[in-house]
């Protein structure tokens, strides 16, 4: 596991050995990590991995069975939600249906005791910022999903929280809108300088927006790192499998030295590749991403032969399934020109990948 490190000098959040059980189910098993100030930090994992429980603990809706949570250096476990300078964008948006958009955005400011004039200014400013100014007097029921999303954001950002928590806020939106909102969220985070803690099960969202990602699985932090680190240097099978697509090959480790391992592949070739798992000889797993496998005249690095047993034309790229001496491999090729997708089904072609783009993980 990589050491949790934050990019900012200051820590906005410190999670220390937090555990939580619901009945017999252990949702979090002694989880620890830091989140830096001004960071866009994502907790990524499948449902049931504990990411939402963690987020709810940061907001104050749940409390850990053991461990502590620090917000800007202050212990907050015993502090109720309404006294934490943290705001949440809920998955359901949770807009108050009986209030206008204006009243929704003003709600937090009123509770903080701001003066009326200041509230009015801030509400106007926030509504402008999310392009909802002309709709101020409407009610949530009259809005589309994307508009509700914007109001939920405006409402949560208006009180200038120290940390903004986002619980799968894009999951209810359609594809096009989701992409636009990703860019908008990223821009908002950069402009406001507020620490964003984003929860999602969508690896693409996580890779696209985050400064750093914590991959959670089975109530534990599997890996913390930048999007590139997570994608290119997964530390175990879980991370390699959950983030992006990959080929897993059963391999035999012949020798390890200085973060690299010399392995024998199932189709008989020996190569030296980066390793994060095994340090001893024996069985291990090799992970190679499909787009790192090159075909035909593009094959380079370690080259062998494979037969195309299936292909899926996706427009921008084509997925190939290859049979390499009885082992199945998936490769994807970008169709850079109209003639990109020319390898016929059944053809036997050179297949290759560069050793540095693969990774040996513990079996």
């Amino acid at each position, binding site marked *: 596991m990589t050491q949790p490190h934050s990019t900012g000098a200051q820590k906005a959040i410190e999670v220390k050995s937090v555990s939580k059980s619901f009945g017999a189910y252990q949702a979090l098993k002694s989880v620890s990590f830091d989140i830096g100030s001004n960071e866009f930090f994502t907790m990524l994992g499948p449902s049931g991995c504990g990411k939402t429980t963690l987020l709810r603990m940061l907001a104050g809706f749940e409390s850990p069975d053991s461990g502590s949570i620090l917000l800007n250096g202050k212990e907050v476990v015993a502090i109720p939600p*309404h*006294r934490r300078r943290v705001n949440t964008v809920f998955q*359901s948006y949770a807009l*108050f249906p009986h209030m206008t958009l204006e009243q929704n955005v003003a709600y937090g400011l009123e509770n903080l005791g701001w003066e009326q004039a200041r509230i009015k200014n801030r509400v106007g400013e926030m509504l402008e910022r999310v392009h909802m100014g002309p709709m101020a007097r409407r009610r949530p029921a009259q809005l589309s999903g994307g508009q509700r999303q914007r109001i939920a954001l405006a409402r949560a950002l208006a009180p200038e929280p120290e940390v903004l928590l986002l619980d799968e806020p894009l999951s209810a939106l359609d594809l096009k809108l989701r992409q636009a909102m990703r860019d908008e969220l990223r821009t908002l985070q950069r402009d406001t300088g507020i620490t964003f803690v984003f929860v999602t099960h969508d690896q693409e969202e996580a890779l696209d927006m985050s400064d750093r990602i914590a991959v959670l699985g089975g109530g534990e932090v599997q890996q913390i790192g930048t999007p590139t680190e997570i994608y290119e240097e997964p530390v175990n099978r879980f991370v390699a499998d959950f983030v992006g697509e990959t080929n897993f090959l059963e391999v035999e480790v012949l020798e390890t030295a200085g973060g690299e391992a010399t392995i024998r592949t199932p189709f008989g070739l020996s190569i030296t590749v980066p390793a994060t798992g095994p340090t001893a000889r024996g069985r291990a797993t090799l992970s190679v991403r499909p787009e790192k496998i090159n075909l035909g005249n593009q094959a380079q690095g370690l080259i062998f032969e494979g037969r195309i047993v299936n292909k899926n034309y996706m427009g921008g790229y084509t997925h190939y399934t290859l049979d390499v001496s009885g082992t199945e491999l998936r490769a994807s090729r970008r169709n850079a020109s109209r003639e990109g997708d020319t390898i016929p089904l059944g053809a036997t072609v050179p297949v290759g990948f560069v050793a540095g783009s693969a990774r040996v993980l513990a079996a």
Partner: protein
Amino acid sequence: MSISHDVKRYPGLRPLTAVFFLYLYAPLAVIVVYSFNANRVAGVWTGFSLKWYGSALDNAALVNALKTSLTVAAIATAVSTLIALSAALAIIRGKNLRFRKLSETIVNLPLLLPEIVLAVATLILFSLLDIQNGMLRLVVAHAAFCTPFAFLPIRARLQGMSLDLEEASADLYADRWTTFRRVTLPLIFPGVFSGAMLAFLISMDDFITSNLLATGGSTTLPVYIFSLIRAGTSPELNAIATLLILASLVLATVALLVAARGAREDAEP
């Protein structure tokens, strides 16, 4: 194919519906019509008149009974709705509550018991405690048996309300009282209103308990009407009944409007 059938295509729908509504409302129509009859004998129409309304409203005993009923119903409604609201909040929203199901059953139990049992039990209890004041007896007993009626709609509304909204309120720096006042209460208000309405109607309508507990100065309207009937039917009764129907219609309309407003706000998924 859609599962819902087009009701309009059912054979004999129109005549059946007409017969049903006739069956349901014909007795009421008769009362309303004869409340305007000039003749003292029901069934013999001799002309339009409002005199029975006049004599009903001149009847001091009747007006007193109405006042008693309204007073008892108003206080019982306020008390039972407050109890029901607290119970619903505790049972639906309370964290780590033990005996949740048991508590709910106990609140609803009076609905399942025959009223005569409750009435006799209440009477015996009041005698044991030596509570003589008729008004007090009525208010206490009514508040008790109205509570489960007020509870049901409040509970339903609270269960239908997403917990997210209260969490969002707490997240936006509202303490628990502010959250209740500005988020929970406005959103469950249609339920509270229906509950209060039901409690009020149940209290106004009650005969068995009120009859057993009534003392000289505390006769409720149903008890008084019953005593009038024993002395022989009077056209005044038709006038009183018509006024009560009118009052019920007004109440029911207001209740429907409040419910419709609630439903509109719920349009948000």
